[in-house]
């Protein structure tokens, strides 16, 4: 049991360290920008999935469902945001008589 607790303390410590890094990316290192925050947040999600949910120990079916969720989200967010992030608004010409 001690080994389990030591591993979980390590996972929790890493999560708190990443939370601190997220705050640092916001306030202390403005150069990191929003991209830095997104990378740290994605890492935290990965640590939770592998550390607390123990994804690594699961079988092929579980991996398939987890990968499907990530793929569906990438399609949803990727294709969904394609329009607002690429659309160019041109000023309309008003014709006055």
């Amino acid at each position, binding site marked *: *049991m001690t080994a*389990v*607790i030591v591993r*979980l*303390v390590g*996972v*929790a410590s890493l*999560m*708190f360290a990443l*939370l601190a890094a*997220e*705050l640092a*990316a*916001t*306030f202390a290192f*403005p150069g990191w*920008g*929003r991209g830095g*925050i*997104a990378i*740290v*947040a994605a890492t*935290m*999600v990965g640590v*939770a*999935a592998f550390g*607390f*949910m123990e994804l690594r120990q*699961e*079988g092929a*079916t*579980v991996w398939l*469902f*987890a990968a*499907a*969720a*990530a793929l*569906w*989200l990438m399609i*949803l*967010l990727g294709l*969904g*945001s394609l329009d*607002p*992030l690429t659309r160019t608004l041109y000023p309309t010409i008003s014709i006055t008589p």
Partner: protein
Amino acid sequence: MNDAAAQEFQFGSAEHQRETAISGIWLFLASEALFFGPIFLAWIFARHADPTAFDAGSRQTELMIGLTNTALLIASSFAYSVGLGYIGFGSRRGMAIWLAIAWLLGAAFIGLKFGVEWQMDFKKGLFPGPAFAIHGPARNGAQLFFAFYFFATALHGLHLVVGLGLVAWIIFRAERYTAERHSPVHVVGLYWSFIDIIWLILFPLIYLTGRAS
């Protein structure tokens, strides 16, 4: 306990039953990821419409409460995982104690979010509508932000309340679980950590990106 007693009749073995339960909850969590996906997409759309005004709304949120709540959920996932570890070694008492700690931390999140933070937001006039407190050119974008904020946190809170009910259910049934047979404890733990993951995404969207330069 022999293998025949450790499984329901439709499963070939106790391990088959465990794998089915774990696969089932992961499929459910995959559908939940898609359930929250459009909310994240809405954030992208709403922020893109007027980034300056949207970020002005974000800066009105209570960062310290959001930060405390993030720490509470991380600690809660940790506590639940320790409880799961205890039942893996056959200790029902250890499991019940750590799950109770996880429950209390989750309840503290709910109390802080809806009993304190939302009340402060209402008092500051940040609920979207005619009485919205932010005026000027940032008004519409800030209202969009707070529409996202209230909807997303309410939905996440609803999931957390369901999770609190499930954790309580596990604690009250603690006597039923053994080192060999505790799939429900594992399944609820996966749901509990998933709620944590959703918050880990919402936290930077609500509290940090608007404050980043």
